[in-house]
Structure formats: structure tokens, C-alpha cells
């Protein structure tokens, strides 16, 4: 992995992000819908108000002019101004970041922590009972939409058994140990629903990767070294099977940031996902632009990490 390759990839990131931001902005600007829709529906509010607001926020300027304003503002660190809540977008996003990291981050972690071992075990014992059970659970995971599984959990655990609260509250007014208990109680369900969904496809990929590696010669060599089956699996099988999986996990990481729209909607988790969906539904362009731009940076960054990891994990990959 030549140092110079890493630097080159980092440098290429800047123009590629700029390119993405241009296209993102055009898509948002040209998409139909209008942030002041609610105003228009209320007869008590005269139409000129909506018109003046559109003018005030420059909605009627040509697209490229709005893009230049946006880029200039971003350069100055001003992420833009939300039409719906009339506050700076970066405060809006930073407010929701802790919740997102805590709940959705935990779900993604759970997905990876569960999917890797299960995938490896299923791969090393193909067509065993464990393999078939793991497979079927994986299918359950990604064939049922999160709005279905989420609601099912709420009905069972909140309504029938009344064990868990059904609404997530970011500002628990308790402290210390009590806060931890309350926080865990209210995040179990969203973390489970999202973790199951994300982990399910991961299990399938890991299993497929392991199945390809398990019969290769150097695994037999490893076994002949008498280092014990467990170590053969961890050091030799998993290490090489991990390589294609790294690409996939990198693709799933940005989801933490803005992708868990439905789960956040069902459990009312005030994460960046629910902010994104409400902003998209209300055509609050600056918020959508800011969130998707950060998403784009994360996507590009994690894919870069995947490529670097790829080169590091597999010495033969020679990036010229």
C-alpha cells in the first residue's frame, strides 16, 4: 500500500465531493415541492407571505446562483438556515448527533458483532443445523420491513407486556445509574429492529465468503500445523474471508448517519434520519442538503477506508 497512493486518494476526495455536491444540489433544487406548503394550505395566511418567504430565502433564484450562495456559505462554515425551524442547520444536526450515535451506532455495532461470528460458524459448518437456522433467521431479518418488525415489538413489549416504553425520549430527567437503566430500556427495541435488519444481509455475505475460503489448501496447511481448529478459523479462515466483507461493512456505515429513517420514525428516536425524512417531506432544502452532503462525505470516506483496508488486508492487491 504505497503511501503515495493513500495521499493521491485523499486529494481526489475533494473534487469528487464537490462534484457530488453539485449534483446533490441540482436534484434538491429541481425536485418539486415547496417548504412553505403548509402556509399555502391555510386560507388565513395571505399568499404574498409565502411568496415573500420564497423570495427572502432566494428560492426563486436560478439554481446555479443558489449553489454558489450555498458553497460560499459552507466555506464560511455557515451550513445554511432551516426554513422550517428557522435556526442554523449545524445546530440542528449537532443536537441530534448524540442520539444517532447512541442508538443507531449501537444497532450497527450489534449487527457486526453478531453477524461476523454467526456468519463464520455457518460457513465453517455448511448445511449443518446451525447453518440452516442462521440462514433462515437472516432471511427473516431482511425480508420483513423494519416498519413491520418495529410495530410488532411495540405491540408485544409495550402494549401487551408493558415492559418497555414505546417512545424514545432524548432528555431523560434522571441521572446516574437510573439514567443508564432508562436509556437501555428505551433503546432495546430500536437497536434490535435495526441491528437485525442490518446484520441479516451481513451474515449472508460473511457465510458466502467463508464458504469460499474453507476448502482452500492453505487452510489444510494451517490445520497441519497443529495450532487447533479455533485458531485455524480465527487466524486463517476469517482473516481472508473478511476481505470482501470489509467492502460491505463500509457501505453500511453511512447508514448510521442518515439511513435509519423508518426505525427512527416508528420509535420516535430524534436521530438525524428522522430529521432528514421530515426535512425531505417538507422540502426544507438547506437541511436536506446539509445532511446529504455529510452523508456523501461519509460515503466517500468509508469507501476510501475500505480500499485502504483492502490493500492492507490483502498484500497482493497492488494499487498502481
Amino acid at each position, binding site marked *: 500500500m504505497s503511501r503515495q497512493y493513500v495521499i493521491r486518494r485523499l486529494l481526489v476526495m475533494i473534487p469528487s465531493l464537490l462534484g457530488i455536491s453539485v449534483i*446533490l444540489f441540482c436534484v434538491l433544487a429541481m425536485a418539486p415541492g415547496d417548504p412553505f406548503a403548509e402556509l399555502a394550505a391555510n386560507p388565513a395566511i395571505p399568499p404574498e407571505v409565502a411568496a415573500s418567504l420564497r423570495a427572502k430565502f432566494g428560492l426563486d433564484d436560478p439554481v446555479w446562483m443558489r449553489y454558489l450562495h450555498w458553497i460560499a456559505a459552507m466555506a464560511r462554515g455557515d451550513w445554511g438556515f432551516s426554513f422550517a425551524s428557522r435556526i442554523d442547520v449545524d445546530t440542528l444536526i449537532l443536537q441530534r448527533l448524540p442520539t444517532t450515535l447512541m442508538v443507531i451506532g449501537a444497532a450497527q455495532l450489534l449487527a457486526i458483532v453478531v453477524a461476523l461470528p454467526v456468519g463464520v460458524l455457518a460457513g465453517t459448518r455448511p448445511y449443518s443445523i446451525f447453518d440452516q437456522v442462521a440462514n433462515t433467521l437472516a432471511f427473516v431479518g*431482511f425480508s420483513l420491513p423494519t416498519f413491520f418488525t418495529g410495530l*410488532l415489538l411495540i*405491540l408485544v413489549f409495550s402494549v401487551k407486556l408493558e415492559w418497555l416504553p414505546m417512545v424514545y425520549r432524548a432528555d431523560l430527567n434522571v441521572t446516574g445509574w437510573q439514567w443508564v437503566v432508562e436509556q437501555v430500556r428505551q433503546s432495546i427495541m430500536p437497536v434490535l429492529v435495526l441491528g437485525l435488519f442490518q446484520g441479516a*444481509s451481513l451474515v449472508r455475505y460473511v457465510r458466502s465468503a467463508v464458504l469460499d475460503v474453507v476448502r482452500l489448501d492453505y487452510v489444510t496447511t494451517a490445520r497441519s500445523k497443529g495450532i487447533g481448529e479455533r485458531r485455524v478459523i480465527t487466524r486463517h479462515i476469517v482473516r481472508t474471508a473478511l476481505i470482501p466483507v470489509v*467492502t460491505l461493512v463500509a457501505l453500511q456505515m*453511512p447508514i448510521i448517519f442518515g439511513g435509519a429513517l423508518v426505525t427512527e420514525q416508528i420509535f420516535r428516536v430524534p436521530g438525524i434520519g428522522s430529521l432528514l425524512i421530515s426535512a425531505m417531506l417538507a422540502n426544507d432544502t438547506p437541511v436536506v442538503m446539509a445532511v446529504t452532503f455529510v452523508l456523501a462525505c461519509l460515503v466517500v470516506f468509508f469507501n476510501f477506508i475500505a480500499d485502504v483496508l483492502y490493500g492492507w488486508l490483502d498484500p497482493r492487491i497492488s494499487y498502481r
Partner: protein
Amino acid sequence: MAGSTPVSLTADPPVAAASATPARKARFSPGREAWRRFRRHKLAMASTVILGLIVAAVVLGPLVWRVPINEIDFSAKLEGPSLAHPFGTDDLGQDILARMLYGGRISLAVGLAAMLVACFVGVLVGAIAGMSRGSVDAGLMWLADLFLALPQLPLLLLIIYLFRDSLTKVLGPEGGVFVMVVAVIGGLRWMQVARLVRAQILSIREKEFIEAARALGASNSRQVVRHILPNALGPVIVAGTIDVAAAIIAESTLSFLGLGFPPDIPTWGRVLFDAKDTMDMAPHWVLFSGGAIFLAVLSINFIGDGLRDALDPRRVL
């Protein structure tokens, strides 16, 4: 496929060079060997039967089960399964079985078509990116990053807004929406497949048998099609089968946002979505719709498993 591990060859080179897209099935050399191995995979066989049943039911069903899909009959609201309504009725008294049969055709078609679009584009882009050096590879990967970053909803709004009228004129209301939904779902899922295929190719490209093929004068595309892709089959098939599930579900979220099929077309995703609020009062409505999606996805995935094992020459069963 193991990204980087050397591909140990049994004595002879890979028997069948089949690629994921059935379009090339015709030129597929006689797959007796592949079929024999596929039969070994009990679950895959069972799934083929189940999927066959589902497809038959969905295609022939409406001819046999004559009940119209939107006959509103308030007296029979939210009824459990009965002889008159084997799957029960929804909150407008419409027969769920008829709606599932009618909607199934669209949902399965959307699922499979979107998967094929995603896989075809993904394999194409992945292969070109993997094989070519420098700028083309970087350019295509930038394109993939761009698509990954695009926000789904505004993009959908824009595409629907731009193309709906022209498409409906050409293909009629249902056809137009079908093409659009498949293009949209497929068009937003090829990136994973592309990246996976590229990763595979980067490592397989170094193998001796590729150099051998090159030495024998194989052009780049021939190398990819005949030698590299069959070895990169695993993740593509796995991704493809996962995409079918994702496409069927994505279609339901599209209906939720009003961008998919018009509300009176009962695709499976839509029926499940409509049923979610009365889950505790009318469980049958949710179970049949959720169950149908689950069964279809389950069988498609097991078939994917069987296919991958059968078509992968190195897998000694």
C-alpha cells in the same frame, strides 16, 4: 468468493462458465453437472417448488379465484379467514386473497426486475472498474459514491416528476409506473454489487490463470466474461437475492410516499403497509401479506444459495 485467496484449481479448468444474468443462459453449456449439484441442495430444491407454486398462483390465480380485487363490502370488514375469503378481508371488506394474487404479479416482477437491473449494471460497472486502471476506475467509483450519497426521496420525486407523464403516455399508467419503479429501485442498488465485483476482480486479476488466458490472446472482455466473472459469482448471487427482498420492501415504502403504484393497485408491500396499523385487531391481514413476502424472499435466497454452490466449479460437494 474469497477476495484475495489464490484460486486452487482442481485438475481441469472451471467446467461451466455461467454468469449470473440468465440472459446469457442460452449460451450456457449443457448444465447437467450444475443441475446435478443443484439437486443435491435439498433446501434449494424445496424452494424452487415453493417459488414455482407462488408464481403459478400469482399468474393463474386471478383466473381461478374470480373475486374482484376492489369490491368494497362494509358488512365483511376485517373478517378472519373464512371459506368465502380464505385470506380474510381488509378494512374495506375487500378480499385479501384476490388482492394478494393480483398484487403478487407486480411485486415479484418488480423484485426480480429490479434485482436484474441492479446486478447487471453492478457487474458491468464493477468489471470495467476492476479491469481498467487509474482514471476509469476512479471515475466509476466516484459515480458509485455519488449514487450512494443521493437522498432517495427528493431523487424519486424528481424522477417521477420528470418522467411520469411521458412514460404513462408510452406504456400506459401501470406499465409506465412499473418501468419507473424498477428503474428507481434498481438504479439505487447497483452500487453495492459494483463495489463487490470490483473488489473480487482486483484480487483475481493477479492470478496465474488470468495471465495464462492473457498469454493465449484473450481480450480484456473475454478474460472478464470467461474467466474472472465465474469466479466472482458468489457475492453477486448473494447480493442479487438480497436485492430481491430489498426491492419488494422498497416498493412498499414508495407506495407509502405516494410515488409508487397508484393507491388502488394492491402490491404486496402496499397491502402489508396498509395492514400494519390494525396488526393487533386483524392479525390475519398482516400475517398473510408479511408471510407471502417472507416466503418468496426465503425461497429466492435458498435458490440463490443452491445456484451459487452448483455453478461454482471449485465447490467440491
